């Protein structure tokens, strides 16, 4: 089937030359449709953690993130699920790591669905790499007008300082 062929090629490309701040692997080697992605908070965003504050929250790391303890940036575990109709339907992206962001639902799902990921805006010629880069870019530049968390969007627009403070705090707490 063509979709598995395409997914395998994309996976190979992504593991051989991963884009900046992104690394991927299959959640289960036997299933190409479920991916485990680590997105590093981009520099300059409140999701980018400095080495100093990193040390103070060392004890709160989750088991998964201990694997990545040698680096200092905020690291977000993102689950990428590809539908069997891929590439004719978009992948779904969800944050397994809690994140304070206007475009990510603040619940156990942590789902993100906007722009190129919307079913009616999805292009079969879009690469998974582009999806992940889009998600990472969203950490630098939230889109408050397409928010799923209206309160955070309000705060982002009206009280940027406070928003960044909370986002940084959550990053320290959950993503390091």
């Amino acid at each position: 089937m063509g979709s598995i062929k395409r997914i395998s090629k994309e996976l190979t490309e992504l593991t051989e030359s991963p884009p900046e701040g992104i690394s991927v692997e299959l959640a289960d080697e036997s299933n190409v449709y479920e991916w485990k992605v680590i997105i590093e908070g981009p520099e300059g965003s409140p999701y980018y953690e400095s080495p100093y504050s990193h040390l103070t929250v060392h004890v709160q790391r989750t088991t998964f993130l201990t694997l990545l303890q040698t680096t200092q940036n905020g690291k977000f575990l993102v689950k990428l699920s590809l539908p069997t109709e891929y590439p004719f339907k978009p992948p779904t992206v969800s944050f397994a790591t809690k994140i304070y962001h206007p475009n990510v639902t603040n619940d156990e799902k942590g789902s993100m669905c906007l722009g190129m990921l919307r079913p009616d805006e999805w292009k079969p010629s879009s690469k998974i790499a582009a999806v992940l880069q889009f998600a990472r870019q969203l950490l630098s530049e939230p889109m408050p007008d397409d928010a799923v968390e209206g309160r955070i969007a309000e705060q982002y627009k009206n009280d940027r300082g406070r928003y960044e403070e909370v986002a940084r705090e959550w990053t320290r707490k959950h993503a390091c």
Partner: protein
Amino acid sequence: MSLSKPTWNHFGIHQPFPEKQNPVGFYRDSLSSSFLSPVALSLSAAFSHPISSNSANMNALSADEMERFQKLSNSYQSDVQGPLVSTKQSSHSIALDYSNADPTLATKTNALAITHPECRIMKGDGNCGWRAVAFGYFETLFALRDTLRIETEIRRMKSLTTLLERVGLSDSIYEIFVDATEEILNRTHAAIQNGAQDESFLVDAFNEGYCSDAIITHFRILTSAWMKLNPNRYQAFLPMPLNQYCSSRIDPVKTEIDEVGLQALIDGVIEGSGFGVEILYLDRSEGDVVTPHQLSSNNPSGATIRLLYRPGHYDILYPVEPLNMAPIVNLQYGMTSDYSPWDQAALGFDVNSSLMAIPNLMQDTSFGMGAPMSPMPSVSPTPASPFRMSPQQDMYQSPMPTHAPIPPIPVSPPPQIAPPSSAPPPMTSLPSRSSDGPQIRLNPLVMKPNLSRSLPVTTPFKNSPYNQAHFQNSDFEPIHWEPHERR
């Protein structure tokens, strides 16, 4: 073919829901595809009243409620029924849909059912225009039954990938789409070699989700690449920068094709096959027939993909088959007007059209056997008359039972004899066969001039069994003659 501004202006009128001005955000394709159907019309009439009278209440809705409605509207998916590509069916079904609608539409669809007796319905899921062209392409190719041509097409489709490379798409992205098109081309090749009876293998392939999506995507990305590589040809017709247009109107799944996109699809993907593409527009513009429009510069008399456009929706149409008509036509008219020198030399009598119209005369070797081999310079071809009884019609047997006593049929005299105001005196015998003019009572459909407007119809078309007025047509209905009626 060159794009012309007025053409697009013309199209613009028929777009009922410009995408960005749709305040309610209905799922556009499904609604507008049925826009003209009586049901949709009555529905919209039923709904428009309460909404307008309650507009004050609409404004009073809280932001939360509005947001909820917006979400509902955004996630609205109409329940579109039916296969992605239907089997061939009678165009009368389209005419039936409009029988109670606007009289213009009823007239046009009725005329359409005669000039294009068959159609194929595409599912209105946003891909209908793309699907119609793609299916039409494969079907036309299959109908030619030319394996060499398919091999050429396989090479051409592969070579088009250079367009994709030039706009920066990588092989890993597009290869599965190209593979799908190639696969169906190969299947078509095999079907011809195996002597497949009909195109059902194509219908099956296009109703298979992955295959259908992949081919449509292939055609989409080729169109998008073609436009990006020929921006000067299209930019002037676009409401936005070309790159933005491609990424919002061509590339995304299930975005309906619009007029510019369709033209680019024809130019970039179909034109190279040598097929013509003709769109017949069904709208409420003046006239009795749908408005035909050639979208390709290819010879319209060659293999042509014909689409029916109703605002927001495309289907495939099949005209009466002129290729199958040709032998019938040529036999009759060749006898009366095209004399080869060999025939002239062999005949020892005055060749005139009346004699030549007798079937099998030329095969009778007893004629002219001992005649001198002198040329016949006096032969002048007689222009073929559409009223002439063809040999085929001579074989027509009266549906009336011959054993029953036939009452004398009163026949009105020719119009030039009776004054139009007075009632014709009844006659007890048929007028003499030798009188001038045909003694055939013509079905008015035969004489209807505008039926032929959408087709390169020649006069013999009217004598074809594909014509509804022909007695061999399955839909033929004899005209009921009333004594008070004049010929």
